[in-house]
Every structure is written in C-alpha cells, then in structure tokens.
C-alpha cells in the first residue's frame, strides 16, 4: 500500500515541472534587470561603498579635515593606512625670539604645525572596507567614495595617496563640489 502511495506521489510531483516552466516563462516575459553598461550607466550608486577618501573641511572642501592623529592607521585591521604628519615649519628669527620670551614667562608655546597630513597612503588592495577607520576617526575625516568604476592594470594602481587624490579632484572640478557622472543613466 505504501509503495503504491509513494509511486503515485512521484507522479503527482511531476506537477512541479510545470510550475518551474511557469516561473521561467514569466521571467522570460518580464523586463530585464541589467543595464547595458558601456552605453548606459547605473544611477542608484549612492549606497555604493567604494575606496576610502578624505572629507574636505568646512571652509575649503578640498582641504582635508584630517588632523593626522593616526587613530585610523592604529585601528585598521589590514594595516592599509599610513598617515604622514607634516613637519612644523621652520620658525623665523622673530618667532624664535617670541618663543624664547614665552618660555621665560612660563607660557606654553602655541603649536603652529598645520594639522592636515602631508601624505595619507592608502593601499586599496589590502583594504577590506570594514569602516573601522571611519568609526575611530575623531574628526570625521574619512568616508567611502562612490567611485564604482575603479579599475587598474597593476597592483600599484591601487596604492594611492589620498591627499594627492583630493588635489586631483580639485583640479578636475574647479567650480561644482560634486562632480556629475560622465554617463547619464536610466532609472
């Protein structure tokens, strides 16, 4: 009795084949979900998390907000960040004199060293995009870029200095702060 039941179940299960055909048939008729890339580009890339980039300052959008504290490099699990601090500018003779006077008076001298980094070396080939650097940044100076079209021919193409990259983006877009994508896109 059970054997017959099982056999009949096998036959009735054949209906699932029809269901499968129905599903693929429906997909066949429905519009495509892909975009023909070289001719059209995607528009919904706002949520894309690309490589790291420096955030510009409040006044000058092309001067990094970074204070070169090095917390990001310390927090990075992949060791892909290297922050090079700027050296203090050589004090002029008058400044040196003022400094000595201040020291005599027992005052703490004011640090004139610019806070933004000289170099911010970032190895994208090591980065796992975990975002720990952003979480640990006290100045909020790091963010993910929306650059989805990044490609390179060698590993070295992914080793960049974010300060240089920021300067390049300044040169690329003199007027508007946000560069419009080259290819217009469909919804």
């Amino acid at each position: 009795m059970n054997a017959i039941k099982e056999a009949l179940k096998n036959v009735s299960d054949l209906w699932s084949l029809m269901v499968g055909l129905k599903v693929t048939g429906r997909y066949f008729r429905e519009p495509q979900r892909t975009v023909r890339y070289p001719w059209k580009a995607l528009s919904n890339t706002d949520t894309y998390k690309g490589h790291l980039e420096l955030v510009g300052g409040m006044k000058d959008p092309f001067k990094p907000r970074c204070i070169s504290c090095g917390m990001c490099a310390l927090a990075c699990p992949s060791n892909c960040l290297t922050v090079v601090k700027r050296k203090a500018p050589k004090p002029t003779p008058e400044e040196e004199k003022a400094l000595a006077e201040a020291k005599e008076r027992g005052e703490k001298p004011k640090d004139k060293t610019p806070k933004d980094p000289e170099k911010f070396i970032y190895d994208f080939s090591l980065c796992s995009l975990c975002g720990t650097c952003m979480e640990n940044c006290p100045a909020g100076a790091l963010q993910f870029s929306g650059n989805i079209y990044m490609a390179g021919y060698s590993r070295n193409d992914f080793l960049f200095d974010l300060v240089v990259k920021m300067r390049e983006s300044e040169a690329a877009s003199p007027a508007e702060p946000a560069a419009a994508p080259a290819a217009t896109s469909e919804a």
Partner: protein
Amino acid sequence: MPAEFIRILIGLVAVAVSVGLIGLVMVWVERKVAGHIQRRPGPYEVGPNGVLQPLADALKLVGKQLFMPDGADPILYWLAPVLSFIPVLLLFLPLPVGDGLMALDINLGLLLILAFAGLTVLSLLLGGWASNTKYCLLGAARAVAQSVAYEIPLLLSVLAVSFVAGSLNLAEVVKGQGTWPWNWNIMTQPLAFLIYIVSALGETNRAPFDLPEAESELTAGFHTEYSGMGFGLFFLAEYANMVVVCSVATALFLGGWQGPVLPGPVWFVLKVSLLMLLMVFFRWTYPRVRFDQLLTINWKWLMPLAVLNLLATSFFVKLAQFTEVRW
C-alpha cells in the same frame, strides 16, 4: 539508379547547409532565451540584437589552434568529432519535411534514424577515451551508460506509434494522421509522446540529462580537451541531433507536415522549432539530475511504462484488426 543517387546527393547538400544554419540559429536562440530567462539581454553587440554573434563565434572556433593532450591517442582523438558529425547528416535523409519532400524514401526510415543515432554514443566514448584525461573519461562513461539506457524506452515508444501506423516509413506515419491536432498520434499515444520526449532529452544529452558534459562537475565532460573545430563539430552534432529527435517527434506524434491553411514544410518547420524551443526552455528551467536519479527515471519508470504502453497498443491494434474497426 542515377535519379535516386542525384536525389540523395541534393538531399545531402541541403542537409549539410541546413545543419550549419540550424547550428548558428540555435546557438543564438539558446543564448538569447537563457539571457531573457535570467533577466539579461543575452548577446547584443554583434549585429542587430546579436544575431551575428554565433557567426563571430564560429569564425573564432575555425581560427583556433587544434590541441591534443599528451598521451592522447591521435587517431581516435581526431576521429571522434568527425564520427559524431557524419552520421548526423545521414539522420536527416529519411525525414519527411513535406509531402514527398524527403531525400531518401525508404520503408525503414525510422530504423535507419534509430540505428545511426546510436553511433553518437560511440563517438562520445572514443572522444572521452582517446583524450586520456579524467574528466573526459568520466564524461564518456556517463554518456555510454545514459545513452544505452535511454535508447530502449525511446525505441519502445517509437515502436508503439509504428504499430498503429503499420509502417516504419516516416512519410507513411505522417500520412496516417490528419490535418487537425485531434487527428494526430499524440491524441492516441500521449504516454508514448511523453516517454519519447524524456528519452530524447536523455539521448541528446540535453539538460536536465546533460551529465556527460556537466559543466559544474566535469568542466565539459567528454569534449573537455577539444579546441577549435574539434569542439565545434561536437557542438554542431549536438544541435543537429536535437533537430533530428524533434523532427522525428513531429513526424510521429504531431502530424508532421499536416496542418490547416499553411503549406506542409512550413508546418513541419514550425512544429520542429516549437519543440526545440521547449527543449531550450527545459535546459534553463530544470536542474541537472543526479546520475542515480537519471538511471532510476529510465529503468524504473520509462522502461516499464513504455513496455506497458507497447503491450496495450499492440492489444488494441490486434483487436481493431479482428473487429474491423478503424480508429
């Protein structure tokens, strides 16, 4: 007999041309259907809607270097693709495309097709064996076990129809059917049609029974090592085999060239292409079966059903002869 000879010659040329053309069209259709089922456009860049893509692929295949792995048997290795393609040309000869439109009008046409279709297995075996590689050998072993098994229900289901028609000539079988769908053999032999389609899928190594070439397990199965036109011939032979099994199904079950309004050959081509499209849809719908499942389907289901169907058919045919009832 020169007239017959010329007829066969013309038929062979027409078949060779149409096989090439069908190969090109089917590659395009297959990739396009696959693309649309997966909600992407498929080939798009070469020619309008990518129709010239198969031509570009064919050119690439022809231009590629022919490779042979170390330790392969050079004679058998190069014999296999040729051997898979040559009998296919022969399979087209007894197919009735229209009334009287067949290259070889013999009364054993069906037998000829079934006999030479069996040669495909040999070429797969040779190709897999001669390559001297594990994937090829596994693919060949699967191909043999599968094709040998699926040939039996295929034969039995075909036999049931020819019992009713009383002939092994495909043209005679078609003439025994009527113009309208309810006059076709599929109405009297629905089970045989189902068995035929399933075993035809197994016989042509199409998904879901594409175990001999299972991409995900054996890279490409028996033709893993073939490059250029060596692979191209296997590929063409596969599509040509598809056309043959669909044509035989059309002639046996779907009334062949018979149909209202339109001329015969148009109906034939229309029915064959519909069946081909169905096979393509099967490929992109169903997952590949496991090998034990494959053989279970065959030996535990198709074979007993085909035998029962054949017995019942022969019983009713005899009954009809005794009682002089035409049905």
